[in-house]
């Protein structure tokens, strides 16, 4: 067995502890899913808290939900679904080795992400101004404000952690875009693009559940 032959033959992106590129690819995909499962556990706890408190203080949660702006939530849902499409197409572009398309699609994905964050910032500003942030300055006209405060605590925690994930996603996509522009990814090696894609879609799925829970299901109730 000649070491120089092995070194010369293998793909430069192949890490020495993997037998071949296929094994490396499968390990990367599985590792990413293990990470996403920990993310499901992280968000799952908050979703459970939301379900339990909504069950216990139903009228207060309906009142809190009705203070949400239907259009901000709906437009942001559409923005995120579009960003997931461009991300899926970006991963495809990396698989078939279309460098320019990959860079362009990643940039469009980041722009959608920034649009989401901008809309969220406008929405947060309104809630902050209206004293809907839990704490000493919290104020809500009507009955049972202390349980409506629980609704807003969960609202800020869930959408806040989601927004933090979006922010991290945009930054990581930025790095991937730089390396894609440098021509690092192609048909033989694109694990980082696939994994950031998996992360991006996961964050989209969290919002797919946040949207109905926070903005929709109590919209037409009278409490």
């Amino acid at each position, binding site marked *: 067995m000649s070491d120089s032959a092995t070194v010369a033959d293998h793909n430069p992106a192949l890490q020495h502890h993997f037998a071949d590129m296929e094994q490396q690819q499968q390990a990367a995909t599985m590792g990413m899913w293990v990470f996403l499962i920990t993310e499901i556990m992280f968000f799952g706890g908050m979703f459970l808290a939301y379900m339990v408190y909504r069950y216990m203080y139903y009228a207060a949660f309906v009142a809190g939900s009705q203070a949400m702006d239907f259009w901000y939530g*709906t437009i942001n849902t559409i923005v995120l679904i579009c960003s997931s499409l461009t991300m899926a197409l970006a991963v495809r572009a990396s698989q078939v080795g279309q460098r320019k398309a990959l860079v362009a699609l990643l940039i469009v994905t980041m722009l959608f992400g920034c649009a989401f964050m901008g809309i969220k910032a406008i929405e947060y500003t309104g809630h902050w101004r209206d004293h809907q942030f839990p704490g000493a300055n919290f104020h809500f006209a009507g009955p049972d404000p202390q349980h409506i405060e629980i609704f807003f605590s969960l609202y800020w925690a869930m959408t806040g952690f989601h927004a933090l994930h979006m922010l991290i996603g945009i930054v990581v996509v930025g790095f991937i875009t730089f390396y894609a522009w440098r021509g690092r990814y192609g048909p033989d090696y694109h694990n980082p693009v696939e994994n950031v894609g998996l992360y991006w879609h996961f964050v989209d799925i969290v919002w797919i559940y946040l949207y109905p829970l926070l903005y929709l299901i109590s919209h037409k109730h009278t409490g």
Partner: protein
Amino acid sequence: MSAHVVPKKTYITVWGILMILTVVTALVSRIDLGHLSAIVALAIATGKALLVVLFFMGVKYINQKMTIVVIVAGIFWLAILMVLSMADYGTRLWS
């Protein structure tokens, strides 16, 4: 080694269905269905999440069984968290 390349048309079709489901769930929320509204909205959300997982995240095309085991185990864990916790809190007021 080569990844399974999905046709662009598939991604665009899935995106179209996701957009239609978003409009449907938004319109349904304008009707007062009482307690049913949460079930309908979450059912539509689960349909959308399934489309994203199967097509955008490519789970439909994964050929490594161990990765599928990891994903199913994770979702099963989430089901335990939700179902058992709600079976507790949801029945505490029964007497």
